[in-house]
């Protein structure tokens, strides 16, 4: 067993630098690497490019980096929940590449799996297709999309073991698996870190080979964006 554990979030983020490209898991505020994001804010890393489906909200998640102007460029599919994001984008303070959500996930997965390019119908005939190769397959037009390149992938899982194996919970899984192994170094934070042998190998969602560093997060706020309930 190859041990991937590091002591804490500081050690986990060794080597990050200004101008790097990061992938960050999560959908809305669900399943985001909270502790790592806080560390990125603390380190005040500058001019970074973030590949993340959303951009957090004004005072949580990636919104914290946005507020401090640490982000040079966002690559996302949906940023509707973040007023500051929209402001920085429309004013030109921040560069933005909007990518269809499925294409975003597949470009991560492609990076992980050594597929440099693939064809998808998503975005054909729209702005997204501009400057991209298009081709007909089975009577339908597709565009060629490329794998992402990133320096770090930052993900959050529910449980993990020393070997770096990860198990996700509910819809907090979302973009996290596709990003594992997609960046040069993958850092995983987990709610519960267990010794090797405690996870059923059949239940592992992401094998440890895709993870270089793993640690148990200090605390998880797990903020809810839209609380919707019904009466008992």
């Amino acid at each position, binding site marked *: 067993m190859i041990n991937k554990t590091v002591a804490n979030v500081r050690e986990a983020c060794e080597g990050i630098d200004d101008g790097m490209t990061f992938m960050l898991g999560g959908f*809305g505020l669900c399943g985001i690497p909270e502790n790592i994001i806080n560390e990125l804010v603390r380190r005040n890393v500058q001019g970074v490019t973030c590949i993340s489906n959303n951009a957090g909200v004004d005072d949580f998640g990636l919104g914290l980096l946005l507020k401090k102007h640490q982000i040079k460029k966002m690559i996302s599919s949906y940023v509707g929940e973040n007023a500051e994001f929209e402001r920085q984008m429309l004013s030109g303070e921040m560069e933005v590449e*909007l990518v269809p959500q499925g294409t975003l996930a597949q470009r991560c997965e492609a990076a992980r799996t050594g597929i440099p390019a693939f064809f998808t*119908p998503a975005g054909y005939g729209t702005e997204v297709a501009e400057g991209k190769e298009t081709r007909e397959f089975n009577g339908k037009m597709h565009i060629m999309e490329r794998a992402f390149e990133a320096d770090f992938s930052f993900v959050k899982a*529910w449980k993990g073991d020393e070997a770096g194996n990860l198990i996700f919970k*509910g*819809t907090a899984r979302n*973009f996290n698996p596709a990003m594992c192994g997609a960046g040069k170094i993958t850092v995983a934070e987990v709610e519960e870190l267990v010794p090797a042998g405690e996870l059923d190998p059949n239940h592992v969602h992401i094998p440890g080979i895709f993870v270089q560093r793993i640690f148990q997060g200090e605390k998880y706020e797990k903020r809810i964006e839209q609380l919707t309930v019904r009466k008992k």
Partner: protein
Amino acid sequence: MLDKNQIAQRIAKEVKDGYYVNLGIGIPTLVANFVRDDISVEFQSENGILGMGPFPYEGEEDPDLINAGKQTITALPGASFFDSAMSFGMIRGQHVDLTILGAMEVSQNGDIANWKIPGKMVKGMGGAMDLVASAENIIVAMMHTNRAGESKLLKECTLPLTGVACVKKIVSNLAVMEVRDGKFHLLERAPGVSVEEIQQATEGDLVVEGDIPEMKF
């Protein structure tokens, strides 16, 4: 004229037994409330759940269990969780039978625009571009006109497109229409709404053939 709930209620009639259905944010989300309970339907949310259930009871919400609208939800027996890559694999691979989503504009050849107003509003396309490019069966839930009273059913979209020639059916507050042969075909009128009113609210070519019945719920 229909309100949002009535639009959802009318669309619910399009949901058939055995369908996997993806509901967009807004009016489409309401459709789940009106699906007949004697048929089997599973709702997919593109953030990674099949078998989505109703909102949780107070105090039982789980921050790790949300829908694509970021609302807390529940999972029904037989549900499954999966990652975003697999989720869009389902969508692109045409395993989802019906997609219901909102629109800012629809054109008479089935183009749809719903993600961007240049210089004003950019929320992003989210999963909409994947959904409209992939789904065989797309129903748009929308208001027939904007707040200024201008038609949202156009000869050509003026806003940046989400997808081309993909919309098959539209349920608005005024009518049910089919998009076919580059035209809107009027199928049903909202209760109390005349063909003339619909015609007036539609900038694109509207085909009216024979007697147009009033919607039934």
